[in-house]
């Protein structure tokens, strides 16, 4: 018998408050599953689908990219000196993050952190003197450490904050951008937050002749050392026609761009809710029912079965949306006070006008296992199966677009990371189909190739790139590098160029990063090669965030065990 999950969430630390929170969360989850229609609840319980953030069902939305400039409280800095203004602005940001995290279930993002901070400081007449520059550096450095070290949220987890940077357009915002990168570069090796995303765009930073090329290079050197920043490739197929200022990554991968209510982009918008579908289970249902093996027929049955489930998922998302919009602005005091959404809340009436701009996402996990079950091949090893896989993802996207038209709401297709579910789905599938399940302790993230594929970095991106253009609710590809590529910005640039060419929207670089708690040395080791201490923190990226492996879920531990370099 396997032990139950020790940690449901990679960023988790337990405290008294955390314990009480978990008790409440669990009973709330049970209550929700009792209240919703039995068919929905059993699909969740059986692991056919996963309703994310179930405890927040009908209470709040998932995540938000702040419309920070909309109602920034400039008046509270009147009459203060530069020191008070700078420290005050960053103190305000920390409090904002902490307060908002009580009002929503997921992460918080800044679409253009460098430009926005520059605008705020300039509007407050803070000049870029040497002493002010030092103070801004220190404030950003402290914000980074706070994001890593505060495990205050829900009494146990750190805040999920994402800073998008790279499009700085004047000396001030270039300074802020450079400072974010330098502060993260200089922070201790154990620093794993916030998530920083560098937006790559031709004409701005992609090529040597572009004005922010120096910042791009600096960012790459930081990634080569610490895996952060990751890269939003604004010139890719999916994003190339949008203004890059409106593009950003929220949390680990959420993408919010099109809006049936007229706006474009992520600022002041977020995801309301998402539900992921277990693809391997559908494949096993098909295999279980079929009389003869015929890939073409099986793929049709697979689609039909998926569609049945996706229809129910749509109903659940709609129900959740309807319940969420019933809440008045006063239930979200901070977000409504600072008008962080694209439209303003009304204190006492429902929030339709606000939340209609949010996305409802249908996610998926284990495309690779599902294809292997149906065809006997891993999709990236067989051109015909690759075509089937791609066609299926395209089909999911067309279903989602159909929902968007039918209900006039922002449905999107999400390539789910599956932090909690990669192990949970497999475990439940083993109960349903003990002999069919591909047993390894986890399912592969979204459309990713298996972590032990052994494909080279170029091959991996070529295999995954074509899927990105369909996943308009968010997706990422990673390259697993053999050792930290210290100093090698040129190599990372090659991968970014290749990624853009093959359609990758969002790209991250992973490598093993072990830190000695005795002397601070870093490298790849179980015992320090300098001081001999075996008290080592192993930092790895799973589900979009860096974390200490000690706090991983079982599924993610198994995944990390199986990873092979690209």
């Amino acid at each position: 018998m396997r032990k139950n999950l020790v940690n449901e969430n990679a960023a988790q630390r337990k405290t008294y408050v955390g314990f009480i929170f978990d008790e409440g969360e669990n009973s709330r989850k049970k209550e929700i599953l009792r209240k919703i229609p039995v068919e929905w609840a059993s699909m969740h319980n059986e692991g056919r689908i996963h309703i994310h953030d179930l405890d927040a069902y009908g209470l709040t939305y998932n995540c938000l990219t702040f419309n920070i400039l909309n109602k920034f409280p400039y008046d509270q800095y009147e009459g203060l000196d530069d020191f008070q203004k700078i420290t005050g602005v960053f103190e305000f940001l920390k409090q904002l993050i902490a307060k908002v995290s009580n009002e929503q279930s997921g992460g918080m993002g800044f679409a253009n952190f460098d430009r926005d901070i520059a605008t705020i400081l300039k509007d407050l007449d803070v000049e870029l003197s040497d002493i002010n520059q030092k103070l801004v550096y220190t404030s950003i450095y402290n914000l980074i450490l706070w994001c890593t070290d505060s495990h205050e949220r829900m009494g146990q987890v750190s805040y999920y904050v994402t800073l998008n940077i790279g499009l700085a357009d004047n000396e001030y915002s270039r300074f802020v951008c450079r400072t974010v990168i330098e502060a993260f570069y200089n922070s201790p090796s154990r620093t794993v937050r916030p998530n920083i995303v560098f937006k790559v765009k031709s004409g701005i930073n992609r090529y040597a002749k572009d004005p922010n090329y120096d910042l791009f290079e600096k960012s790459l050197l930081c990634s080569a050392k610490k895996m952060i920043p990751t890269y939003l490739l604004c010139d890719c197929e999916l994003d190339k026609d949008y203004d890059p200022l409106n593009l950003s990554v929220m949390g680990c991968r959420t993408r919010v761009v099109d809006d049936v209510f007229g706006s474009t982009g992520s600022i002041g918008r977020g995801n309301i809710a998402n539900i992921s579908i277990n693809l391997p289970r559908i494949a096993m249902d098909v295999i279980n029912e079929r009389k003869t093996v015929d890939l073409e027929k099986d793929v049709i049955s697979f689609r039909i079965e998926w569609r049945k489930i996706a229809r129910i998922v749509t109903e659940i998302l709609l129900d959740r949306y309807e319940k969420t919009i019933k809440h008045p602005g006063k239930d979200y005091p901070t977000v409504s006070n600072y008008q962080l959404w694209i439209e303003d809340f009304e204190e006492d009436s429902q929030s339709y006008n606000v939340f209609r701009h949010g996305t409802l996402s249908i996610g998926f996990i284990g495309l690779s296992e599902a294809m292997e079950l149906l065809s006997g091949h891993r999709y990236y090893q067989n051109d015909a199966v690759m075509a089937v896989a791609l066609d299926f993802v395209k089909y999911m996207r067309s279903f989602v677009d159909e929902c968007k038209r039918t209900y006039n709401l922002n449905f999107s297709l999400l390539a789910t990371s599956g932090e909690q579910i990669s192990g949970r789905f497999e475990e439940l599938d083993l109960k349903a189909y003990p002999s069919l399940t591909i047993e390894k302790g986890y399912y592969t993230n979204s459309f990713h190739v298996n972590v032990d594929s052994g494909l080279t970095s170029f091959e991996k991106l070529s295999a995954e790139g074509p899927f990105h253009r369909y996943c308009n609710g968010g997706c990422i590809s990673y390259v697993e590098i053999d050792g930290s590529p210290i100093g090698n910005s040129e190599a990372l640039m090659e991968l970014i160029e290749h990624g853009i060419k093959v359609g990758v929207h969002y790209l991250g670089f992973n490598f093993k990063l072990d830190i000695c708690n005795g002397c601070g040395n870093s490298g790849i080791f179980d015992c320090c090669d300098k001081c001999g201490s075996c008290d080592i923190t192993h930092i790895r990226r799973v589900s979009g965030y860096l974390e200490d492996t000690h706090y991983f879920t079982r599924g993610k531990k198994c995944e990390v065990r199986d990873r092979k370099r690209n």
Partner: protein
Amino acid sequence: MLRIHSVDYRGSFVDGPGIRSLLFTQGCNRHCIGCHNKSTWDPSGGYEISVKELAEEIKSNCVNRKLTITGGEPLLQYDDLIALIMELNGFDICIYTGFEEDEIPDHLFKLVDYIKVGPYNADLRTTIEPYIGSTNQKFIRNLRKNEKESCQ
């Protein structure tokens, strides 16, 4: 004929700038303590291949044309090494040698893009300096100006 151990086209991120294929030449008399590639020491090990054939193989497999020649000690087969470099016209080439900078013929510096010089010294091991294994080693950059646009 060049005696080599193997060519790795999977792409290394730590043996010079960019993603690089690695050619391991066979034979080294230096025998550094802590050497990663002991199987390349024996001067009669590995296999022989003509310079032309090897160059053709590299050209068809190393798509991004970035090659690091390491070993073994590549400079022990100096004439054939130069012949190979001449064949690989248009390649971005890096040499990893255990010889010191002043022991290497001037001619070689004009033919390649990067040279890592100096023997590995386990006592001076570093994991934070790019492209070198110990701090006594030196990574010499941009020996010939690349005419290609850096990122376009």
